[in-house]
């Protein structure tokens, strides 16, 4: 008898469509209809995005027409957005800020989520609830105290000033706590016996076990920072520090908005995230999916 046979569990193998029947072969009209409806729904879902892309390649005067395919597609707007070079800078700023914030938030959210999930100590429920309750205060109300703080510490008009409020997030802490519930304690205890300290256990044992979750959280936080507007606006003075969303508002002037430029800027801002998403789709979806596994 050998023990080398490797066989994934039957459930995993049979994971086709749930309740997928096997008795009737061939094209089932129910499936055809279902697929068609889903495909139509999907098209409706992406319509606004297509519209945005279409608007970005229209001439300003054509902006107000309902046609989706522009009469004469042009990269004129892209030229205008990119010509003065500020956009590149904003893009870079957004990238730096969103990346650093994401790394920090993922790090700390995982740290806190882990501590709240895996250490038993008095007051942890309280800490957890207190952190969660911060979800219930709108950011707008926090701006003034943050601004005062940033001024007192000399963070105004700096990268750090833009980033500091987002260095940790309650949502991420919640998610990470959920994820760590799925990590069996045995892994941690084995490492404890092997002589690692708690920090090493977290970093080199627990963290690698939740990588899909980390990637999902990273996407959420990155997107959140990539589109953040009001705080970066308030805390920056020089245009060199603008992020894309703040920069885009310079395309709206008194009482009138240059929509074709906003659309172009938005398209430029969205395209990288779309590309990243499409490349890492499976990974991201798996991570996002983990978020819902345990309520």
């Amino acid at each position, binding site marked *: *008898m050998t*023990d*080398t*046979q*490797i066989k994934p569990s039957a459930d995993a193998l049979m994971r086709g469509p749930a309740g997928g029947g096997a008795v009737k072969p061939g094209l089932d009209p129910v499936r055809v209809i279902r697929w068609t409806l889903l495909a139509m729904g999907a098209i409706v879902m992406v319509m606004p995005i297509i519209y945005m892309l279409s608007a970005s390649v229209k001439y300003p005067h054509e902006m107000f027409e309902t046609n989706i395919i522009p009469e004469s597609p042009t990269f004129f707007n892209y030229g205008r957005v990119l010509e003065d070079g500020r956009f590149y800078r904003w893009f870079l700023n957004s990238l730096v800020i969103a990346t650093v914030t994401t790394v920090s938030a993922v790090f700390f959210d995982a740290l806190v989520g882990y501590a709240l999930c895996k250490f038993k100590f008095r007051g942890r429920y309280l800490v957890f609830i207190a952190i969660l309750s911060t979800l219930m205060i709108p950011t707008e109300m926090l701006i003034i105290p943050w601004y005062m703080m940033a001024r007192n510490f000399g963070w105004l008009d700096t990268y750090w000033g833009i980033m500091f409020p987002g260095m940790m997030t309650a949502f991420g802490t919640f998610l990470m706590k959920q994820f760590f519930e799925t990590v*069996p304690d*045995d*892994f941690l*205890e*084995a*490492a*404890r*016996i*092997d*002589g*690692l300290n708690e920090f090493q256990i977290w970093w080199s*044992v627990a963290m*690698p*076990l939740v*990588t899909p979750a980390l990637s999902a959280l990273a996407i959420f936080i990155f997107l959140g920072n990539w589109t953040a507007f009001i705080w970066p606006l308030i805390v920056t003075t020089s245009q060199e520090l603008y992020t894309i969303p703040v920069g885009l508002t310079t395309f709206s002037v008194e009482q009138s908005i240059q929509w074709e430029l906003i659309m172009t800027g938005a398209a430029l801002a969205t395209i990288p995230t779309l590309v990243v998403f499409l490349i890492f789709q499976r990974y991201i979806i798996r991570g996002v999916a983990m978020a819902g596994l345990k309520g």
Partner: protein
Amino acid sequence: MATLTLRNLVKAYGKTEVLHSINLEVADGEFVVFVGPSGCGKSTTLRMIAGLEEITGGEIMIGDRVVNHLEPKHRDIAMVFQNYAIYPHMSVRKNIGFGLRTSKMAPADKERRIDEVAALLSMTELLDRKPAQLSGGQRQRVAIGRAMVRDPAVFLFDEPLSNLDAQLRTQMRLEIKKLHQRVRNTIVFVTHDQVEAMTMADRIVIMKDGHIQQVGTPAEVFHQPRNIFVAQFIGAPSMNLLDATYADGQIRAAGASVALPLELPAGSALTMGIRPDDLSVAPGPGLFSGTVSVLEPLGTETLVYVDIGGGHEVIAKADGRTPPRLGETVHLHADAANMHLFDTSGEALR
């Protein structure tokens, strides 16, 4: 390698005490198996030895050091978990080497040590695989390898075989046993499977509800169980137990009577126990007779479930080639010397 001593060990969760004054000495190089039903406190004891669980009372000594307040890493132990706890994101080599991370060995020595252990477990060619590419038995061996690599004084195993299927389990228990014969570390092994306990242990510790019921070699606990619990727990199928009364050198149970002089007052209530192996189906009037209700052929032998009337069913063994038929009336024979007797409190009388 070292002795292990538990002295008046107590564990309480909140107010409920789950381990009550456990005392045990494990000799250097001994293979001790803890066995008992689910929830009896086996894992808790093991985890206290490992330093994963706080000690409520008493003392644990490894060698001649009291380790009560030492961190796991300083206790010179290694542990193998039920679900193996091998890291899915690391190769086998890294998994095994994980136990050496904090050691001060030179990297080259570490590598050599890993290769050594891998060779011992015949896994050299698997070293670069990830756990997902291994079978259950192989994963189990990786877990053992990770424990072995540090050459600890005491090995702790917590039901390491219970996730394997029957065939693999048999094979792995043999491997572990052979390994122990080679390396001779002190081993404490937890299981709830009495066959595992019997086949592997130098000594078996049988626990129930946080108390040790009996400590002894496999032969001792099988042939001289200290009480009904041990008698029933050890041996498969379980010992047949019948209510009996004693009077005038005769024990009466389920309509049968056996001459056995005991120093007991007449009319004493007893429990009589006979192992299925000691109850054979043979022609001619024996101890009991009854009709066969179920047959379980095992090949060479067949288990015969016999309804002996009065709501009693006993299990006997018959030859595998010529078993009785279902519904047939059979006679069961037993040797008085093989009978076990227990008093009303369950303690063995002899």
